[in-house]
């Protein structure tokens, strides 16, 4: 008799289906999610499922034409299409996410606050912040040009449905670790590029 155990045997099909549904809807699966009743972050079962059988899921999705991406810095999963080809829509959702997050980050930094407060439950984005972004014509124009016809409110819902922000109360939001990760990547990228630039200038003047 064959007694061949596969990755499928160790995974609860219901949990697996749930995780797949979320991933296929373009969500990020963060290690924790916000629970409004406890007003705190709680464990995300989908993350646990994916994390425990990471290799199994990675290979399974690969067979379906998707790549399961894991971020070990901020602990989240998401699924990307494997073949880029000449698919015009390949980065469509990524762009929407990036534009919306960048506008939040830009607004927050402009108001003189440290970006880390964006993920703090005690601070985050509040009603007046949201109103200020909505009232800004330039932000609205940009969001419209990034397929958010309804402006910032639509962008917030989009981000919330995909796990980039958590809703912590009425008109209050915080950035999820995945959302924060984008702002961190941009900040690090800026630092690296400006340092390179400075070195290039220095190098040029040295060689003169």
């Amino acid at each position, binding site marked *: 008799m064959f007694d061949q155990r596969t990755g499928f045997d160790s995974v609860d099909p219901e949990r697996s289906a749930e995780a797949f549904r979320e991933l296929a809807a373009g969500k990020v699966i963060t290690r924790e999610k916000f629970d409004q009743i406890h007003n705190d972050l709680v464990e995300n079962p989908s993350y646990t499922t994916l994390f425990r059988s990471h290799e199994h899921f990675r290979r399974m999705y690969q067979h379906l034409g998707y790549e399961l991406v894991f971020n070990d810095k901020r602990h989240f999963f998401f699924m990307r299409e494997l073949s880029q080809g000449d698919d015009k829509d390949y980065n469509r*959702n990524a*762009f929407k996410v990036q534009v919306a997050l960048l506008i939040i980050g*830009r607004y927050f*930094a402009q108001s003189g606050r440290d970006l880390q407060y964006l993920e703090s439950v005690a601070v985050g984005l509040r009603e007046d912040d949201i109103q200020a972004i909505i009232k800004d014509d330039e932000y609205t124009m940009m969001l419209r040009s990034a397929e958010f016809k309804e402006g910032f409110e639509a962008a917030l819902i989009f981000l919330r449905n995909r796990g980039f922000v958590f809703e912590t109360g009425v008109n209050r939001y915080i950035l999820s670790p995945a959302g924060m*990760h984008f702002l961190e990547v941009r900040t690090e990228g800026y630092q690296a590029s400006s*340092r390179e630039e400075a070195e290039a200038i220095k190098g040029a003047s040295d060689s003169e």
Partner: protein
Amino acid sequence: MSDKRFGTIETIQVIFQHPDTFFDLIQIMDERKELSIPEHDLLYRVEKAIRTAAPKEKKRIHLAFRTENLAGSGLMSIDKKAGVPHLYFDDSLIQLIRICDRSLRQDLTNAKLKARLSSLRELKRQIIESNLNSDNDDFLEACQAMSGELNSVIRLIHGNIRDLELDVSKRMEDISGAMALADEKLSVTQHYNLLGQITSIHQRHILPTLEFLNPSIKLRDGENLHETLEALGQAYRSHAHYELADQVDRSLISLNETYKPIQTIAKRVQDFVAKNQRALRQHNAMEEGFEELRNLITETQTSHLNRIQMHGDEFVEKTGFMSGLISRNYPSVLPLYDDPSSIRLLDSDLEARMEDAGRVNEAPELPTFTSERNDNGQERDRGKLLYDWVKGMTIPETNDLMRHLHERLHAFVGGYESMVDLMEAMSFVMNDKRRPINVRVINRFKTIEDDGRHMIYRLRRVSTISKEENHV
């Protein structure tokens, strides 16, 4: 050779052809806070200018900048201070050169603004004391001096706001650049030193200017600018000098307009200083990203007029964040699958439509709406005709009952109007308890377009009840 001299115009020409000499001199005077310059400083600068000039030009420079020549052209006077000759240049020449170089402009400082205010007050006092009689020479002179002074105040402030704005932005950029580049955390002293320049601008220039322009500020030593000018305007008006009063009002408006931009600069500086190094780095990174977005949006506005959406591929790839994130629903819904159940669905759907086709001769022709309005009996006929037809229809298993019905009625029923007849047909099907089907209403909305009109409806899913179930 030694008695050769240039005229005033030619001397000034040479000075402006070699402006660096005077730029340097003014800078030295400003640094020392003196109105004169020792002769040897001039000689040293001239020597420098001659060294770099073309041979022919050397002679001209030498001649023009000679002390005798400068004094002879009326551009300066000489005074001996502690045995050293000091040169006092003509004020208007100095002013003209200052205009040419932004860095030499006299900043708005507390002391200077105070001096301006007190001279305005003094002129106002003179004007009022002269009883505002147009025959009085004192009055005319004071009026002239007043308009001159007012214009120069406006010029000074307008010119400086622009400079201040540029200067502050530039400094902020430099400081944030320096902070962002620092590898480790900046020490408190380093941080303080970097911010020192900008806070001193804030303290020495921005705040005094704001104070000078603020209409509601109370000054210890007398009226503020606003009060002075307002009182002057009233005095003019009460003595029927309307033109002069209007001029004062215009100046007042012009000065008030500058209040806001200065306030904005002040706010920017305050916000800026409040940030720490980390926040600054973040601030710059966000600005950089935002600038990229601005470029993308400009593209949609200028070079591609038919494009509304930004093209973000490059932007996304810069960080690669979420690149390729799924944007379509999975699994994509295909109408046909190569499996028994979908073939069975297709089969039953076709069969039902074939049945319709089989009794095409019985297909009703519904009366038009106009005839219906004329005769009440016909309305019932219309419903009855439709009911008879729908009663004979077999409803197969389907995911979207509304569309299914619409398609079939549209194909066979003459005079079919989707908005009315579809609703009616739907209610016949839903209320017909004898049909062996289950209809589930699902909380998802779909639209049907017919004849340019759109109808939004809730999805209804049909499943057939198997024979066994039916018997039970």
